Structure formats: C-alpha cells, structure tokens
C-alpha cells in the first residue's frame, strides 16, 4: 500500500488533529453525494476507500499494538453507490432499464425505453436519469418535471427534481465557497429539504 500519510497529503509528523482534519477534508471531497448518478462514481468510491484505509492505518499505528481507535474509523465506508434500486415498484422492464443505467450502459437503457409503448411517470424519470448522466441537464430537469406532474407523491422523482432545481453540488475547499453560490443560509435550508425528502423515504 502507498504511504498512508502521502495519501492524506500530510507529513508523518502531523498531529492527530491535523490527520483528522486532512481526512475529513478529503472525505468531504470524495463524498458519494458529489457523484450521484455520475459516470465517475466508481472512481470516487475507490479514492474514498484509499483514504479510509490510510486513515485507519494511521490511527492503528498511533494507538500502538494494532488496537483500532474505536468509532473514528471509516465513518464514510459503507456507502453503496448503486442507483435507484430502492423504489420497490419497478416492474420487470423498468428494472432492466435501471440495471442498464447502473451498469453505465446508456445505449441499452435508451433502447429499452424507446421500445416501451407507454410514457408513464417512471418512463420520464428514467429518461431524465439517462439525460442527467450524459450531462444533458436541461432535458433531465424537464423529464423529472413531467414525472413529478404525473406522480406527485413519488419521493424519488421529487428528490431528483429538487436536486436539479438546486443546481447540484460539488466539493470546494475552505475559502473557495463564495462565488455565485447559495448563501450559507440557503444552503442549510436546502440540505434540510433534502433530509426531509430522504426521511420520507426511510433511508
């Protein structure tokens, strides 16, 4: 394995506090929320694994005798990046489309959708997801809007639409937050919204 200090970008003489801070900053950077339904999500997961391992290795070394420092290790470890499987209401054909999207096989997913006779809410939602993945953000939003209009109670669709309306998110280091972004208050409010929506779904 690489030098764990190098992975976290610090020197081996860093204090425990500095180690923790460097780890937290990188965990914020590679957080799966920044790579939702993104072709790079696997790469981000790999990076996350790397820093988790590095952090665990350092805490292990520092606590001596191979004891792990309980609680602090790999707090971001067990996130599954797979997308949209928890709807539960997907019938066979739509499940196939979701699988294709998860595999990153957008052509296949698009072809399956094109063959479907009915344009249901889920059809629009999945078409929007494919558009999003390609970076076609305007069309993605329009399809999510249609999906929400047809099935206003569906949390998955509403969450996707809310995300588009917020303009997405990305990691910015401390001190780079300001330009053209939401104010801190707006940011908190929208996070609360997202939390509510997630809570509604029970995840």
């Amino acid at each position, binding site marked *: 394995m690489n030098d764990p200090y190098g992975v976290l970008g610090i020197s081996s003489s860093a204090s425990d506090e500095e180690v923790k801070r460097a780890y937290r900053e990188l965990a914020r950077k590679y957080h799966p929320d920044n790579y939702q339904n993104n072709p790079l999500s696997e*790469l981000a997961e790999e990076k996350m694994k790397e820093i988790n391992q590095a952090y665990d290795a350092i805490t292990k070394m520092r606590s001596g005798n191979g004891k792990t420092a309980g609680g602090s290790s790999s707090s971001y470890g067990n996130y599954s990046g797979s997308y949209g499987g928890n709807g539960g209401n997907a019938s066979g054909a739509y499940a196939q489309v979701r699988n294709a999207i998860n595999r990153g096989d957008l052509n296949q997913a698009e072809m399956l959708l094109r063959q479907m006779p009915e344009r249901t809410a889920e059809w629009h939602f999945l078409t929007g997801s494919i558009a999003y993945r390609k970076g076609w953000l305007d069309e993605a939003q329009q399809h999510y809007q249609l999906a929400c209009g047809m099935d206003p109670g569906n949390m998955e669709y509403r969450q996707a639409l809310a995300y588009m309306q917020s303009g997405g998110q990305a990691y910015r280091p401390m001190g780079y937050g300001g*330009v053209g972004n939401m104010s801190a208050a707006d940011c908190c409010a929208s996070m609360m919204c997202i939390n509510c929506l997630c809570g509604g779904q029970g995840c």
Partner: protein
Amino acid sequence: MFGYVLPLAGELKVKEFEKFKSAYCGLCHAMGRKCGLKARFLLNYDFTFLAMLLDGGSKASADQMCRCVASPFRRRRVCAMTSGFEMAADASVILSFWKLRDTVQDEGFFRGFAARLLSLLLRPAYRKAAKRRREFDLTVRQCLSQLRQLELEQCPSLDRVADTFARLLQAAGMEAQTEQRSPVEQILYHIGRWIYLADAYDDLEEDFKRKRYNPLITRFALTVPTLPEKDREQLETTMRHSLNLATSAYGLLQVGRWSEVLDNILYLGLPTSGMRVLAGEKIKWNQSKQKIGEIIYE
C-alpha cells in the same frame, strides 16, 4: 474558444500568477515550435487552461527564461513543454481553423472576407497540427457539421446543440494520460456545455437582430431579444450545475504543479465569468484578454 475560461486574477497569489504566466508563455512557445509563428497569434487563456489540464501531474523539467517576439528584451519565465502543452497547441490551431471555415460558410462574401483570409494564412499550421491529431481533427469536423445541421433544423433542445460543442472539447482529452482520461474528459464535456450556453446568452441580442439561430430563442420560444427573469434563472441554474459536475470530476484528478492555478479557475474564475455573462457584461474575446493582458505585458 471564447475567452470565458480565466482565473480570478485578484485571488491569485503572486507566485501562482507567475505560474499562470509561465503556462501562457509555455503554450505560446509550444505553438510556435510545433505549428509556426502565425499560430502564435491564436494564443488565448482558454487554451492555457486546456494545456494545464492535459499536462496533468506530469513531471516536467524546470522553467526556462526566454526572450520572444512579444518580449524581445526582457526574458520571461516559460514553463517546460510537455505532451499536454503540445496537444493544447495543436487543438487550438485545429479548432480555430475550422471555426474560421465555419464563419466563411455562414457569412456572405464581404463579412466572411476576413475569416477567409485568416483561414488561408492559418492553413499551413492547420495541416501540421491535423497530421499529428487525425482523430481529434475528424471529431471536430463531425461535431461542427452536426452543429450546423441542428442549427438548420432550428433545434429547440439546449442540450442537444450544446452537446456537439461539448463533445468536440471532450475530444481534446483523448490524449490525457490513461488514468486521468475519464475525469479530464468529463471536465471538458461539462465546461464545453457551459461555454456554449454562456456564448448563446452573450450572442442572444445580435442573433435575434440578424435572425440567426440561437438555442435560447427556440428553447424558451422568445419573441423579444431578452430572456425573461424566470428563464434566465433557469439558465443560470443549469450552467451552475454543469460547473458543479466539472468541479466534481476535477476533484478526482492529479494536477501536480498547476493545482493552485486550476483550483482558482475551477472554483472562482469560471463561476465569476458565468455571473458576469449572465449579468449582461460583454467579456468575450478582447475585453477579457485586455484585462489580464495588461497585467501580463506590463
């Protein structure tokens, strides 16, 4: 490209600004050496960004101090030329050449005259560059002809037209180092979409007046040459989202010696340019060039 991709100069440290200047000079030298003197007039900040991005974390030899046409007396710091800089030099020549040919086709004889002349001057440089980058040259031609087709059809989808330019820019990433390739391509795709939309907004009034195609006119069914507030917000959000996706991809990249400058461009420079364009400021081409240019050539 258009001059939107700039660092926010006021937020750069002096040493970072020196670095940016050395990249700018480095690209200019790369263009001169690879494509001839005339190509050097195409130098701009967008391609300096591309050069730094494609250069990646490559280990380069130390900077050199050189004289050049623009600075015949005082030596300037020039970064070492790597394959990323060579690619950016070729890409800028190929893109500019086809863009000029495009203008020649679009405009009448008189309006297109300058473009025709420039493209003739640039042809030898283009030939050299295209010989080295056949695949990129082909993609540029394909994407521009698809763009032309969509314009003829009065395509109402923002994404579909922006996609042609985004893919064209993405193609410049094909020569990045293998393990960096997919994030670099993602960055270029999303920034390409962002540039296209910014440019469409910038040109809106002019296109409306001259009855030319503009995706914003067809997408928002405009009957006046201004975008209503609600639609402008929509455009702002979708552009910000593209930048966010580019920024997320950038997070996965090793950029070595350029990290501070690229951080500035991604986190500050691009959002600022976007805000200024949407506020109606005309920052395209010369205006932006002058501002930083003053600092560079003072």
